[in-house]
């Protein structure tokens, strides 16, 4: 782990371990709140903050927590951070907090965060854990924003509430509905598969030459 450096830990979250599409973790929020770009970004930022805090705390506590009770203690750490985020959002951004509704507290059970604590932070010092959290968190944020973008453009014809498609455009209502979330998500997973298999094929070719 130590040999790979901070840059690697950061970068892997952006493509190699891109959370929702590659690891299929944290799918609930990715599907639920991405009917507009704003909601996607807000959710992504909230998750990034919780992930960062959780990784730092778990990493600092890694020598003190007995391994039998580790999952329970991680959950409590995450739940506290989410409570803080929730109260912060409700105080400073009430409309966004309202739009996200119960999905903000549901960050607690976002398996991605527990997964990073378990798979990375508990075995690594603080700095790599921060890099890991930033990488994975930003990858998650970008994925949510991308899904929000597709669904908002097709469903309302707008981006960030600005009209981008003219009056000729008939909004695809299905994209805002739950079904649209599944369809876009499935399509994006296929796209990521396609790009990475192309990349792998290219890498194999250059290796041969």
């Amino acid at each position: 782990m130590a040999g790979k450096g901070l840059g690697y830990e950061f970068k892997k979250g952006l493509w190699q371990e891109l959370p929702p599409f590659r690891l299929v973790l944290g799918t609930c929020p990715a599907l639920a709140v991405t009917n507009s770009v704003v909601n996607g970004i807000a959710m992504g930022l909230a998750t990034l903050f919780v992930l960062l805090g959780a990784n730092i705390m778990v990493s600092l506590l890694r020598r003190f927590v007995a391994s039998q009770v580790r999952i329970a203690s991680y959950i409590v750490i995450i739940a506290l951070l989410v409570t803080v985020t929730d109260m912060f959002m409700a105080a400073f951004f009430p409309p966004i907090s309202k739009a996200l509704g119960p999905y903000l507290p549901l960050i607690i059970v976002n398996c991605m965060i527990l997964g990073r604590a378990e798979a990375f932070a508990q075995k690594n010092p603080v700095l790599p854990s921060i890099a890991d959290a930033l990488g994975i968190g930003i990858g998650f944020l970008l994925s949510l924003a991308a899904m929000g973008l597709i669904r908002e453009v097709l469903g309302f014809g707008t981006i960030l509430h600005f009209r981008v498609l003219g009056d000729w455009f008939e909004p695809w209502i299905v994209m805002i509905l739950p079904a649209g979330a599944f369809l876009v998500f499935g399509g994006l997973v296929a796209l990521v598969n396609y790009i990475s298999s192309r990349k792998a094929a290219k890498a194999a070719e250059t290796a041969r030459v």
Partner: protein
Amino acid sequence: METLGTLILIFISAALINNFVLTYFLGICPFLGVSNKTENAVNMGLATTFVMTLTAAATWPIYNYVLVPFHVPFLQYVSFIIIIAALVQLVEMYIRKSSPALYRALGIYLPLITTNCAVLGLALFMVLRDYNYLQSIVFGFATGVGFTLAIVMMSGIREELEFADVPRHFQGVSMTLIVSGMLALAFMGFAGLIRG
């Protein structure tokens, strides 16, 4: 009579119209993970229904008789998740003692339920919607039934999909999600059930 009507309404709405998996996207992880065989899906659904009903029964009094009187409802997330984790543990211990056969069937799924967001979501929705005690229990049970329904249907479709000729890049998760989208569209048909 009116209360019975409300209870039935809550049941239908939570199990069919606002199915947790297909309209609120809660419990997607087990939905994708355990839906490849019908037998596993049925067991997972039963275990989850059981835990959900118990969760509703346990979190309601804690919220209304402990957190609210002491003016600390902001502790609800922490306390709910602890209750759920403890409950899952207790259920696991009880089943292991009382019925080893059932334990073998459900064993590996039980710990997974703690991180099933549908269970925590259920507790949060229950508080948001101000249900009374009986309504909460019906709501918990109905949500479980809805989850079981969705996961069992999905597993049936996925067993058929094994023989289908799916384009290479769409295989696996991607196809499952697209099929879920179709299923969600179909479930929207239930929205007409409750009107007036």
